[in-house]
């Protein structure tokens, strides 16, 4: 049984970052989910901080550096994706968005059908709707399948026991991880975007244009 590939994109900027901390907790929770198919989950982490200049260069040149191409392949070829951003100015960080812009510009179907768990970190819980108002629409645009539970971690979540009316961070992580694992284990793997070129046979391209085949 080949292992399932789980790619984690973390857009945290400080080292160490709470964004990365949340990303690691989520990845570990997915890895530990029991599954009927006995397939292991292999985790690969993409730290966008290390690729910041490469991402900016890609936006002006139209092509990725070798390191960025490897990160894009890790994302497009994964069986599941965990995407975690810090909240900046009420939304995902610019670096986070630019990374997914670069992927979408090269191939707007690259993340179609991809199981995605979205998560974010911030100073207070006041920005937690960033997950629903920014992250979820972004991945909906990319035609990914976003799991129902999105995980937000405010500074307070890293200590204390939360308020009695809200699930604690570990509970939310476990629920989201279970949802992602279920999608990943039930899914056919797809080759990464940089695999061999696929093409529609030319007769089909021509036939689609013949006047008699038009249905308008």
């Amino acid at each position, binding site marked *: 049984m080949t292992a399932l590939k789980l790619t984690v994109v973390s857009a945290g900027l400080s080292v160490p970052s709470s964004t990365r901390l949340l990303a690691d907790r989520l990845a570990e929770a997915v890895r530990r989910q029991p599954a009927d198919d006995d397939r292991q989950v292999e985790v690969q982490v993409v730290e966008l901080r290390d690729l910041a200049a490469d991402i900016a*260069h890609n936006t002006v*040149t*139209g*092509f990725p*550096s070798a390191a960025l191409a490897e990160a894009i392949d890790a994302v497009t070829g994964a069986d599941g994706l965990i995407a975690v951003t810090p909240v900046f100015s009420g939304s995902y960080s610019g670096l986070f968005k630019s990374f997914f812009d670069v992927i979408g510009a090269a191939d707007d179907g690259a993340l179609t059908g991809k199981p995605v768990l979205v998560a974010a970190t911030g100073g207070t819980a006041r920005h937690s709707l960033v997950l629903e108002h920014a992250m979820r629409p972004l991945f909906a645009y990319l035609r990914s399948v976003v799991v129902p539970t999105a995980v937000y971690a405010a500074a307070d979540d890293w200590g204390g026991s939360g308020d009695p009316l809200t699930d604690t961070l570990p509970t939310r992580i476990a629920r989201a991880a279970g949802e992602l694992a279920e999608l990943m284990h039930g899914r056919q793997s797809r080759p990464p975007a940089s695999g061999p070129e696929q*093409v*529609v046979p030319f007769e089909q*391209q021509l036939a689609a*244009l013949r006047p008699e085949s038009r249905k308008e």
Partner: protein
Amino acid sequence: MQFGIFSVGDVTQDPTTGRVPSEHERIKAMTAVALKAEEVGLDVFATGEHHNPPFVPSSPTTMLGWIAARTERLILSTSTTLITTNDPVKIAEDFAMLQHLADGRVDVMMGRGNTGPVYPWFGQDIRQGIPLAVENYALLYRLWREDVVDWEGRFRTPLQGFTSTPRPLDGVPPFVWHGSIRSPEIAEQAAYYGDGFFANNIFWPKEHFQRLIELYRARYAHYGHGTPEQAIVGLGGQVFMRKNSQEAVREFRPYFDNAPVYGHGPSLEDFTEQTPLTVGSPQEVIDKTLTFRESFGDYQRQLFLVDHAGLPLKTVLEQLDLLGEEVVPVLREEFAKNRPADVPEAPTHAARVAAAAAGQAGKDSEKEEVAK
């Protein structure tokens, strides 16, 4: 193997002097560069086609006709001719006319064009880019091969009993290259017709083009035109040379750093590592170009971009001297070594006329056999 140059035709400020050439100067510079290409022994000059500033070559066959009248051996081509927004009937007429005037020294490279507004300016829709390229070329192909064409399609008014004139010289249409930077559909189209495929690899790392060319070669064989190794491949590459490497880098860096297509992104060093751009001595250009064969297989045409980034004409002409004297003679010799005998030469009108005559003779003798 053919060697030549291709020009985008941009009007770009010289960042070292702040001077911007006029359109007239730039057009005259392009033709001066073409004449120089023949003088230094290159085989091909190709011009781009654009319909927006800061680019000047909107009317390629007018320019190429002028050059044809002043040259003897140079093959005149395009990089590219917009198969999406030009009327295929006008392409058929213009290039057949040019072919007669140039005594066959003409081929053409089809491209889709990636400037969004050009499509609506010419009454088309960029979202139909691939279907336009497919349908328009299918019509062009017939106009050059059938004396009378009845035709109906999606994008152009129908034709009844139409004859495109003049008929191609010697009954043999100009050779066609299909240029692409990212679309497998275009590699497939080139393979289907047995036409050439030009990978305009100047801005992308080689792995991307290896996949495209591999696809083209495999599909060329699939459609029965020959082995994958016999498919007709052209490649680009942009260079700046001085006698020694340090001098070249020092002189070109301000041009690189400020050019609209290169500047304000990766450093000159990163860019030269990741793309075909070579800034250095003639030997470095030779070395880099020879790696193309390792990456893409034996190929037929190498075009260099030399009039880029706002370089003044005098500098560009010096580049051509270096290309003609020091680079291309070595490349011709090296590329000829270990080249398998069944890899075809680059297409020329004379060779295509001979092949057509041989094909016709074959058919005639078959007919005689049947008659007997």
